């Protein structure tokens, strides 16, 4: 195992770099360029108990140094994922983290229930940015008490390690992180996109509201990782605007145990393999034999 190897949720990963959910299709799409086994683990597109068609277009909008998306969680549903897409990961012998969501507690539970333990399923990643339709569309991730009860419910029905993925649009993210930890989460993914709106000045309309991602999210994500990693003892997966190895290293220094790369892949489809290679080269040049040597070094 190389210097990038890490152990998380009781499992070994050959490196701590993954794609961010929803930014690598069903993973087979990237095959013509590089193999999914390059990554420590592959994070699935957000899955739900039933299939979702997603939102009408426009679904993506460019911003300076970032983008807004409003995909609307289009996916084939968790069952079809396991029948049609999971065999690909088995063939590639690549661990996956299954990102999932629901629009009600029941939907989360029924999705999680359908995911049977498998040696290649390293963890579930629970997307808590989803709107709760029973509560007028307020996202589950907004209140510490809701996060606590949601994480606890899912923990009650699955033996697979559970990661809570949090939204940054809250009053106090550290409080939410602590709630997820106390409810039994095995890790946290920080952060999901930041709610934003685009205005089309030519057409004088708002073509879409959605989640902001890309470099413009990075300083906000770094703060989230820095503060939450001081507050909870579980591993944190940092995500938000990582474009290159230097960006990734900043997240480890801020306290992350792994990172995910999303939007960067759209700008440079080889971003992920380059980040992995760049981190390895940096560790060698810094004379360090493990990425753990810099994890959280900024916590003085």
């Amino acid at each position, binding site marked *: 195992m190389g210097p990038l190897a890490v152990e998380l949720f009781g499992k070994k990963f050959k490196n701590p770099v993954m794609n961010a959910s929803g930014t690598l*299709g069903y993973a087979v799409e990237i095959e013509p360029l590089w193999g999914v086994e390059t990554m420590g683990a592959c994070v699935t597109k957000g899955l739900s108990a039933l299939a979702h068609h997603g939102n009408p277009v426009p679904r993506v909008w460019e911003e300076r140094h970032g983008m807004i998306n409003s995909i609307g969680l289009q996916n084939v549903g968790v069952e079809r994922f396991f029948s049609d897409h999971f065999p690909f990961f088995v063939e590639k012998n690549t661990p996956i983290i299954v990102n999932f969501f629901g629009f009600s507690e029941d939907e989360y539970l029924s999705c999680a229930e359908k995911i049977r333990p498998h040696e290649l399923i390293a963890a579930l990643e629970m997307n808590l940015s989803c709107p709760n339709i029973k509560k007028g569309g307020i996202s589950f991730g907004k209140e510490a008490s809701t996060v606590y009860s949601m994480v606890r419910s899912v923990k009650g029905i699955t033996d697979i390690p559970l990661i809570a993925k949090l939204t940054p649009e809250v009053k106090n993210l550290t409080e939410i992180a602590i709630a997820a930890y106390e409810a039994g989460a095995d890790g946290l993914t920080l952060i999901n996109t930041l709610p934003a709106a685009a205005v089309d000045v030519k057409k004088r309309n708002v073509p879409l509201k959605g989640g902001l991602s890309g470099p413009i999210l990075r300083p906000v994500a770094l703060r989230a990782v820095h503060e939450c990693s001081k507050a909870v003892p579980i591993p944190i997966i940092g995500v938000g605007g990582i474009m290159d190895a230097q960006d990734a290293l900043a997240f480890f220094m801020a306290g992350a145990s792994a990172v995910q790369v999303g939007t960067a892949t759209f700008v440079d489809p080889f971003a992920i393999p380059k980040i992995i290679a760049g981190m390895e080269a940096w560790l060698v040049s810094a004379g360090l034999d493990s990425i753990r040597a810099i994890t959280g070094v900024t916590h003085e």
Partner: protein
Amino acid sequence: MDDIPGRIIENINVAPGYFRLVIRLERPLGKASPGQFVMLKIPGEEVFLRRPFSIFGSRGKTLVVMYRVAGKGTGCLSQALKKSPVMVLGPLGRGFTIKKRDAYLVVAGGIGFAGTRMLLEKLGEKATLFFGVGAKEELSVAEDLSGICVHVSTLDGSRGFRGDVVSLLGQHLDACRQKDMEVFACGPAGMVKSLRALLESGHIPCQVSVEERMACGMGLCFGCVVATNDEINPFKRVCKEGPVFSIWDLSL
């Protein structure tokens, strides 16, 4: 599919607002079929995402793109100097499927011509091109066609038929009705809609290349979907399942 570094070797204004871009790639682009496209990284740091462009021509390490200035990205591109570095991801998407037919009618609206250029080359003399533009100056985009029958429409009447290209096609359609023919089209959304209305009655096979905003261009983000009649999975990715669809599968 490959992501290939290249340099601009020509970037010239061929008609008002239209540019011909020639790129010298470090490696040859993989074999492209008509209707496929590339995602181009525009030089400089100003434009964040790549932009999709049809493959206008590709031979060895030379790639040709024809583009119209539409906004920030194409505006920046039109300013790019010779030797500027670019990245070219492609060939991408599913292009036109060519079945043996008696006649092929190719309909291109404005810069949509770029999406049909390789197709015309492949179809050769069996193709008839219906090319609609705003004014005659834009016709220089399609200068080097030989051996292909071309019908032209201009909105301002400065050349050929005065009006839109679908009306032009309408005038010729009856003459071909009997034949085993297929229509191939590329152009703005409005053109696609009226084309469908025109063809509706005759059940004429028609493949159309559609456009949608893209982030990745390779099926990763599900940002570029178009609504189809597929009940189980209506939203198809333009960059992956498209950009060419049967016009009858689209839910317009």
